């Protein structure tokens, strides 16, 4: 048995013993409150709801530039393309509505969720490709292009709804996925040995070279995102991969288990915040 597996089993056994002993153990809701409180304490004049705007909630100068961009945002062209893609029927005559339903405004808010049948975290982008494959269409690549445009159209339609990620009480597998995402967020990785929390929690608001580190609270609310750096639209998992590369950690596959579990955890941390995608960022 691998060395890592042995340690993992030991750690879980210890956790189990603690639970058995009745000590206080973190629940997702407890996690979420502690997470949110961390940021509202660190940035004390910013209400939790503002964090969906990332650095623009905490830095006045860049907010001015961002508001000017939002006046006529670059992702508008992508939303239009996304609408065309979404409404176009598949070769078999069916449309995306046959998978997602007729009410466009509720689609974005349904993801990510725990898919009990497949026993995995289901994301919007994965659901889009599942829909395509169910209708004999080729799947799309997950980081940019058509998948991002479709996602941007759906995100726009879902703006204003509250994030409400559910971890079904009767599913230990769902809880495990949440815990895996949580562990990923707080684990150091890469040659530079940074965890997501090192930059986006303990150093949020500080600078890394010329950029401000955004708070992790609100991170998932505004995807897909038009990044000036990319000169285009990209998905959440594209951003995860880029961040991992930044600390010299080999990125995981977009829509693979690691990033879907991370999305599950991060989105849960944003429960109660408003969906405001697609977003524009530096």
């Amino acid at each position: 048995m691998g060395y890592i597996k042995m340690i993992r089993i030991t750690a879980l056994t210890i956790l189990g013993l603690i639970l058995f002993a009745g000590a206080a153990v973190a629940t997702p809701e407890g996690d979420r409150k502690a997470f949110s409180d961390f940021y509202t304490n660190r940035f004390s004049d910013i209400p939790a709801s503002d964090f969906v705007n990332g650095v623009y909630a905490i830095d006045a100068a860049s907010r001015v530039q961002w508001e000017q961009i939002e006046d006529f945002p670059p992702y508008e062209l992508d939303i239009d393309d996304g609408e065309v893609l979404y409404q176009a029927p598949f070769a078999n005559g069916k449309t995306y509505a046959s998978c997602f339903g007729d009410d466009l405004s509720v689609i974005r808010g349904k993801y990510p969720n725990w898919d009990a049948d497949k026993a995995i975290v289901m994301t919007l982008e994965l659901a889009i490709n599942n829909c395509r494959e169910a209708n004999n269409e080729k799947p799309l690549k997950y980081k940019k292009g058509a998948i991002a445009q479709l996602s941007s159209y759906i995100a726009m339609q879902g703006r204003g709804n509250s994030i409400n990620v559910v971890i079904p009480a009767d599913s230990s597998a769902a809880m495990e996925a949440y815990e895996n995402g949580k562990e990923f967020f707080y684990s150091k990785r890469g040659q530079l040995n940074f965890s997501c929390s090192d930059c986006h929690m303990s150093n949020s608001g500080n600078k890394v070279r010329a950029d401000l580190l955004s708070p992790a609270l609100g991170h998932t609310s505004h995807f897909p995102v038009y990044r000036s750096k990319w000169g285009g639209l990209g998905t959440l998992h594209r951003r995860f991969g880029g961040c991992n590369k930044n600390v010299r950690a080999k990125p995981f596959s977009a829509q693979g288990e690691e990033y879907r579990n991370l999305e599950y955890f991060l989105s849960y941390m944003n429960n109660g915040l408003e969906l405001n995608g697609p977003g524009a960022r530096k």
Partner: protein
Amino acid sequence: MAGIKAKAKLKGDAVKVKALMKHPMESGLRKDKKGNPIPAHHITEITLLAGGETLMTANFGPAVSKNPYISMIVAGPAKGDELTIAWIDNKGESASTEVVVK
């Protein structure tokens, strides 16, 4: 629509016209992965017209990046007037769209 989105709003004496233009804006200085130069393909001129009369001309060059955004403030048009924004690029391709002043 041809890849231009435009908005025009009257504020006081002047109309602010904003346009987002879909265009690769290739400078001609870049090279592809094999080292071959990517030919220049960028907007060279943008024109704003009202009733067939040119209100403003902008000369764009290779230094402007992809999908450019332009904001113009012009005096003259009134609410309800229809304006036209058009661009032409170095390959001779062009696009235009109409926008009503709000």
